[in-house]
């Protein structure tokens, strides 16, 4: 088996940073009620600036695939190897530009590089870890020598008021609610990328991949962050494609992106249980972690969970947490690579230091971890 290294990282955040006061101009106004919910959401998620790939009038010059390709080109620009040597590309996203074909093909097309093996991973935040694991194993087994991962999102286009309008007067799903507004005021656009090789850099640090762990708990949870159905339980889970036509599905809100909060809080103990299993099994040694990159804020961890982690000897001290969610925004699957890129670029990493990335996905309860050792 080969040893696998991340040798370069890239990120692409379209346009200028957009602050909390300016953001409504980009996602559009849904009225005072939505604005009030938005203020509450911003207090909760702690995001101060983010980036959008749309203009205030809703127009755009780019695509999700372009964002991914830009992020990857930036990674290769910093790499000791060359884009021309890339032979395996794994892409991650929540929603690609098209329904068909796969996002992997779109990103490969946007890159315009030579023929290669591609794989498209579609989930929510953890799609990045899925894509990463596939690239890691492709290299580990000797199938390829240079692989790349992209994770990118263009969420803002889903948040424009038009996605919430209907001709059915007073349809309740269209009244601004926390369920829909949370995501509108939390998610933004961006892409991250990683170049993986079977050899480390000769002129700088690399991150050796120790392991990747991912687990789905969909056996016990209904969809929690979802789009494509009116609701996440009962008859209203009918897929949007089962309606008479796409317009009929849109009319009853089946195409909106929604988050079920009650369910989200039920996932926390399950995620904590999985993490504690990894600690108990010796895979994660909380004391040995130098940088903990959570796609999650310590603020929303909750006192009860902090207490659980503390009394089980599993808490990684908060001073070792590294995140840029507040300045770069929550870019879904891309966030973890955008964080890792900033850590790699700005911190003076020393050989032997351990980095643990943590990506929980509320979509339908997935938890994932990637551990690196600096070499």
């Amino acid at each position, binding site marked *: 088996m080969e040893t696998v290294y991340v040798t370069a990282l890239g990120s692409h955040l379209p346009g200028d940073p957009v602050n909390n006061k300016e953001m409504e101009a980009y996602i559009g106004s849904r009225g005072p009620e939505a604005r009030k919910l938005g203020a509450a959401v911003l207090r909760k998620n702690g995001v101060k600036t983010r980036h959008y790939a749309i203009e205030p009038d809703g127009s755009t010059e780019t695509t999700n695939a372009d964002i991914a390709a830009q992020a990857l080109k930036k990674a290769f620009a910093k790499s000791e190897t060359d884009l021309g040597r890339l032979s395996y590309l794994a892409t991650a996203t929540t929603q690609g530009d098209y329904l068909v074909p796969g996002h992997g093909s779109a990103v490969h097309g946007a890159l315009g590089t030579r023929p290669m093996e591609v794989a498209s991973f579609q989930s929510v935040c953890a799609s990045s870890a899925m894509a990463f694991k596939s690239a890691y194993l492709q290299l580990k087994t000797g199938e390829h020598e240079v692989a790349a991962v992209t994770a990118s999102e263009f969420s803002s286009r889903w948040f424009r008021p038009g996605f919430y309008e209907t001709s059915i007067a007073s349809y309740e799903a269209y009244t601004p609610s926390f369920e829909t507004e949370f995501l509108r005021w939390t998610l933004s656009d961006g892409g991250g990328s990683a170049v993986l090789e079977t050899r480390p850099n000769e002129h700088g640090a690399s991150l050796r991949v120790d392991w990747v762990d991912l687990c789905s*708990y969909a056996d*016990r*949870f209904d969809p929690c962050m979802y789009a494509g159905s009116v609701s996440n*339980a009962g008859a209203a889970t009918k897929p949007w494609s089962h309606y008479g036509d796409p317009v009929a599905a849109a009319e009853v809100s089946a195409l909106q992106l929604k988050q079920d909060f009650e369910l989200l809080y*039920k996932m926390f*103990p*399950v995620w*904590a*249980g*999985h993490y*504690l*299993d990894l*600690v*108990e099994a010796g895979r994660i040694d909380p004391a040995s972690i130098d940088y903990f990159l959570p796609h999650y804020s310590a603020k929303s961890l909750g006192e009860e969970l902090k207490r*659980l982690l503390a*009394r*089980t*000897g*599993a808490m990684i001290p908060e001073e070792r947490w590294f995140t840029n969610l507040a300045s770069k925004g929550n870019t879904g699957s891309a966030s973890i690579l955008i964080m890792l890129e900033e850590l790699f670029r700005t911190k003076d990493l020393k050989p032997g230091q351990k980095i643990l990335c943590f990506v929980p996905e509320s979509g339908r309860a997935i938890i994932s971890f990637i551990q690196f050792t600096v070499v």
Partner: protein
Amino acid sequence: MNVISIPQTFVPPAPLPWALHSTLRRLASVWSDFESQVQNTAFIRRISEGKMRRDDYLSMLLHHRQQVIDGACWITRAASNVTIEFADLRTKFIKHAATEHLDYKMLEADYVAAGGALADIISAQPNIGTEVLSSFLFHRANQPDPFDLLGAMFIIEGLGRSFAGQWAEKIEESLSLQDDQLTFYRHHAEHDQDHMAEFEEVLADILNILPDLSDRIVQTAKVTARLYLLQIEEIERA
């Protein structure tokens, strides 16, 4: 030729708080699995989706009663098997049982206030899940110094701490109950928080003296969780 044998793998006794941390980690993992399974039983799903009917509430109380009665009994049985060196812990077991041993009256009063007949809940055959759960707990309680029952208490108290409040809220919403019809679950939602803190103290004390008990405590927690789930499933089947 003389060969001096050197033990190849000498494992020193694990110092605290490792044993405590490890036990709590494994218990938390057993709990999170159990919690999901409970949430996914047909009966509990009906409660959380707000579809519960008054008959469901009555049957929940009826099926819970025997376990509540047995609870105080197996804890005092366990206390009677605690040797004198652990007299302090015995005191805690007895006090805990004393606090809860009349709780079944609260449950009966709720049953009657919600429209059930006292004779029905008193004469009902025990839920078969309860019957195996209690048999197992009495069996463990009959062992000398049966401190592994802390694993069982962790699961049962955890239900009070994590579920009683949720259930009480949902039941109240779906059935518009009055205060005197929902005292048992409310009481446990409020009081079982304190029990968890006390539980951790006792666990720390025991592991300090008997660090090797960790595996048996976790095992008893697992069996309790499995059998408790059976008890919930049986509400639906009865």
